[in-house]
């Protein structure tokens, strides 16, 4: 075996290599713990974190907000990392391939084209709108007039951001990596600068005594909804983490940087957003950066933020398109990459015409997508750790319906699909983020963790019921 794999010269091999179909070999897995920590930090300190912090401030004050963000992210990241990072790191394959046992080849396609696609389109729409708001604020400052937070310039800016993101994406992962190498440290510096501006223009006392912006009457409920919202944020990393973790050299280089990197970096950025929301009434730095930082610095920061949103968009869309392509059963394999990526952006482009809707429905979006992603994690954990005892037959997995271990009638493992739906339904019964109805138990156990447990138990029970004669491991 060669020490380092040589880049494939055959275009077909090169294409499969880029699109992540092949399991990675030891010589190709180059990320150390530090490398992966930086990757996760770059993802976590994106501008959506400010919005999450600001949304948390709707319900709780500063200290309770920090606690809610810590508890929520710790829980959400805990089972998200176990469900996606561990298996992908060991086998060098991305998480959607490894879900074939839990859902079947067609079933994974169903999950990807519904839960994953809608979730990632939602986040992309939000990032486009945030880039549009930064554009509008810069234009307002330069023109000396107020163009509004949800005006037509926001839509134009959002559409331009999508066009640039598509261009970056169409150039492939190398270009995305180059942009991220600049953006990540820049955002870290800007986050610190913004915190300094916040403290300089307000005070610690004002921060610590600030009341939540729009709480419910029940304080316990406020805190638990804030926790639950942050659990949803933690699990929202599921669609991209497996694809990244396969690049790491060891388990330690994968699990701890994924958990610690995302947790710490997310918390820092969210605290800035929450502090801004509590003291200034708005978490979005596009609103307060120019008044506080002055025209030149403010505009420079806003342009950087707009650009950061574009690279974040490119990163998450890249992983999603890979998943879509691999889960389409060969239907999309021949569709040109540029066409596929452009198709993804159609819905986010439409959503930029409704920027206010995107901002106002942010908490509902995160919580509802969290309901499905937590259930998905529950099923994935039960399948990999309990049913298959961490053993995967890579040949059988790639054979899919032509093999035996991961083949199901019609390509769908109904045990996995039913468990996913029941887990999500249980979440929505405990806590309905649309009607805000909750069960008494929600104030004690939240909704995500029990939803994941219910999904896992239902999956194992249905597997025993539906696949009694089945073999799940090659040595079983």
């Amino acid at each position, binding site marked *: 075996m060669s020490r380092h794999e040589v880049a494939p010269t055959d275009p077909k091999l090169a294409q499969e290599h880029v699109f992540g179909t092949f*399991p990675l070999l030891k010589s190709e897995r180059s990320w150390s713990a530090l490398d992966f920590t930086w990757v996760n930090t770059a993802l976590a300190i994106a501008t959506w974190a400010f919005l999450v912090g600001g949304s948390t401030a709707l319900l709780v004050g500063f200290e309770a907000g920090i*606690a809610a963000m810590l508890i929520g992210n710790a829980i959400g990241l805990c089972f998200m990392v*176990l469900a996606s990072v561990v298996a992908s*790191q060991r*086998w060098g394959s991305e998480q959607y391939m490894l879900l074939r046992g839990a859902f079947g080849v067609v079933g994974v396609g169903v999950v990807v084209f519904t839960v994953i696609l809608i979730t990632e389109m939602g986040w992309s729409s939000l990032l486009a709108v945030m880039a549009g708001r930064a554009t509008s604020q810069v234009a307002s400052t330069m023109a000396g007039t107020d163009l509004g937070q949800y005006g037509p310039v926001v839509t134009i800016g959002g559409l331009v951001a999508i066009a640039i993101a598509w261009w970056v994406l169409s150039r492939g992962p190398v270009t995305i990596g180059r942009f991220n190498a600049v953006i990540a440290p820049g955002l870290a510096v800007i986050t610190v600068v913004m915190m300094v501006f916040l403290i300089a223009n307000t005070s610690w006392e004002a921060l610590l005594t600030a009341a939540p912006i729009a709480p419910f009457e029940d304080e316990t409920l406020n805190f638990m909804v804030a926790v639950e919202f942050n659990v949803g944020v933690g699990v929202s990393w599921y669609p991209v983490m497996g694809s990244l973790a396969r690049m790491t050299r060891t388990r330690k280089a994968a699990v701890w940087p994924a*958990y610690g990197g995302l947790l710490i970096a997310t918390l820092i950025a969210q605290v800035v957003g929450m502090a801004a929301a509590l003291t200034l009434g708005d978490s979005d730095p596009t609103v307060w950066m120019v008044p506080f930082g002055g025209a030149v610095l403010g505009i420079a920061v806003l342009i950087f933020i707009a650009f950061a949103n574009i690279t974040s968009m490119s990163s998450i869309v890249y992983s999603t398109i890979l998943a879509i392509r691999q889960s389409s059963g060969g239907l999309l394999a021949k569709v040109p990459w540029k066409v596929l990526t452009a198709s993804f952006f159609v819905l986010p482009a439409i959503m930029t015409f409704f920027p206010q809707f995107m901002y106002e429905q942010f908490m509902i979006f995160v919580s509802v997508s969290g309901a499905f992603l937590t259930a998905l994690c529950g099923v994935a954990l039960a399948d990999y750790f309990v049913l298959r005892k961490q053993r995967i037959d890579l040949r059988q997995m*790639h054979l*899919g319906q*032509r093999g035996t271990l991961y083949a199901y009638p019609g390509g769908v493992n109904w045990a996995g699909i039913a468990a996913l739906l029941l887990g999500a339904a249980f979440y929505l019964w405990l806590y309905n983020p649309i009607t805000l109805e909750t069960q008494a138990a929600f104030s004690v156990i939240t909704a995500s963790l029990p939803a994941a447990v219910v999904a896992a138990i239902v999956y194992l029970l249905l597997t025993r019921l539906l696949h009694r004669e089945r073999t799940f491991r090659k040595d079983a």
Partner: protein
Amino acid sequence: MTPTPPARAGEARASEFEREMIAAGKDPIVAAELERRIGTVERDELDDASRQPFSGRELAAYVGVSVAAVVIGILVVAL
């Protein structure tokens, strides 16, 4: 009957795997590369530390840290 030696059994399964992948629509060169990679993972990297399962001790440490983070959060609110 003489049993098939393990190496030859592996080769037979390998070619069967490639045939199945080609029949499923994979390009022959891609199927061969996939087989080469899976063979490397199963043979050459079998005992490599990076290919070992997540141990019970690692799981306990990981969940323990998560629980500790939750407890710190609860203490921030309680105190």
